[in-house]
């Protein structure tokens, strides 16, 4: 039986495919072509059960030229960058750095994120840094929940955290606010780290 993978290799072995791989290697500073799929990375991955392909599977997808499938996968958003995989990798591939590049490419290419909640959370954190220079957890949580139209899950937890003063009512912020705005301008991104 002819596997779909074989077809994809043939369809994607042209220059465009090679360009994408080289770009990923250059941007991530790690050579995913070295991966020989021993699957050690998945063995220790704490979020593996939430993934579709697992870390080496995501690398395999890209090696096979399935660029869209890679950028559309949930896995690139579930990776929390804990580096457990990299410690296990016999080829010393920086898998967390690779996943960073995959997420960033998905955003740049306008691929709808498979896990919009996770992206929404990242946007709120970056927005908080834009506003205060530091992260203001209470506002991040409130704004995140509002964005999700979900004010009730975790409400009890939020109240408990407020009572225990785990969530401050006022933000801790830096005094030189202009310098943070300057960083965002230098990167050419909006208040939440998105393209202008």
């Amino acid at each position, binding site marked *: 039986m002819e596997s779909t993978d074989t077809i994809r290799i043939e369809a994607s072995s042209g220059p465009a495919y090679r360009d994408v791989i080289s770009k990923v290697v250059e941007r991530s500073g790690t050579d995913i072509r070295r991966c020989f799929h021993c699957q050690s990375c998945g063995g220790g991955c704490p979020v593996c059960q939430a993934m579709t392909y697992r870390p080496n599977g995501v690398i395999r997808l890209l090696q096979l030229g399935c660029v869209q499938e890679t950028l559309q996968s949930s896995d690139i958003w579930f990776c929390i960058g804990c580096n457990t995989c990299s410690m296990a990798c016999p080829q010393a591939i920086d898998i967390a750095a690779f996943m960073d590049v995959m997420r960033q490419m998905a955003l740049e290419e306008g691929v709808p994120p498979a896990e919009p909640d996770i992206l929404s959370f990242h946007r709120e954190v970056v927005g908080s840094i834009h506003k205060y220079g530091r992260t203001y957890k209470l506002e991040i949580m409130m704004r995140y929940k509002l964005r999700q139209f979900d004010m009730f899950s975790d409400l009890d937890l939020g109240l408990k955290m407020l009572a225990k003063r785990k969530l401050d009512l006022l933000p801790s912020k830096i005094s030189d606010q202009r310098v943070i705005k300057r960083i965002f301008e230098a*990167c050419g991104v909006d208040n939440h780290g998105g393209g202008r």
Partner: protein
Amino acid sequence: MAAVAEGMEFSYFPGCSLATSAKENNRSLLKVCQKLGFNLVELEDWNCCGSSSTHSINSELAFHFACRNLSLAPAGRPLLVACPSCMLRLRQAQLHLQEDSEARRVYERMWGRPVDSNLTIIHFFELLDSGFGAASNPDFKTALKGLRFAPYYGCMLTRPPAMRHEKRYHGLMEKILGSFGAEPLVWGHPSRCCGTFLSVAKPAVVTPMVNQIIQGAVDVKADCIITACAMCHLNLEIRCSLRTQLPIFHFSEILSIALGMGIKKSWLKRHLVDPLPLLKAKGFLETPVVG
């Protein structure tokens, strides 16, 4: 860097968690450092290291956030970092600056000063490892007697390949707290990730992860879990849905007890899983609990 010595001065980067949700971690850490004779000067007007979110969506932004902090550090003082995650962000930016001349040019343009190639960034743990004289003090050898603890490092022990030659902290909590008479337990999850930010966006994914960690500590009959990171501390407290929950302590809080300074009520009040019954049962409250 010269060996860490008493009386030494450090620039101190607490990071957002210790400045807000984990103030008890910050206060106990400062107290321990004071007791050990280290002088910590908070890095003036520090900003967020970028956290997990920034590098997830924009590497350049993350690099600048880390660099601004590095540019604030006065020369001649090592930069002490409290949070393992901030530590990683700052060190990675520093490595990038060391290796890439274009990155150095960008830094100089952005911050109007050359990169300080002599700046040492060290984590709180490193300070203890090299400068812990009190553990040999016979007065304290039984300070933590009877405390069975599960040492929890989370992802603090893991590194990207570029940092594989950096100092590691395996066994440090066991070694130090063990020297005060506490009993470190061998268990299955000392370096299992706590789930970090997914705790907010995907609690259904994080709860089983946290439950597995806590159940692992319960299975070896631990009295408590001691954490190295404020984020881990929070996740273990808020995302456990097991009937049996264990008190979770910051390493610095336990050190405060170990060094005879007791534990402050104001720190304990900020714990979501009440640690008082355990502390009472172990007699750790006989050392002064100061309000």
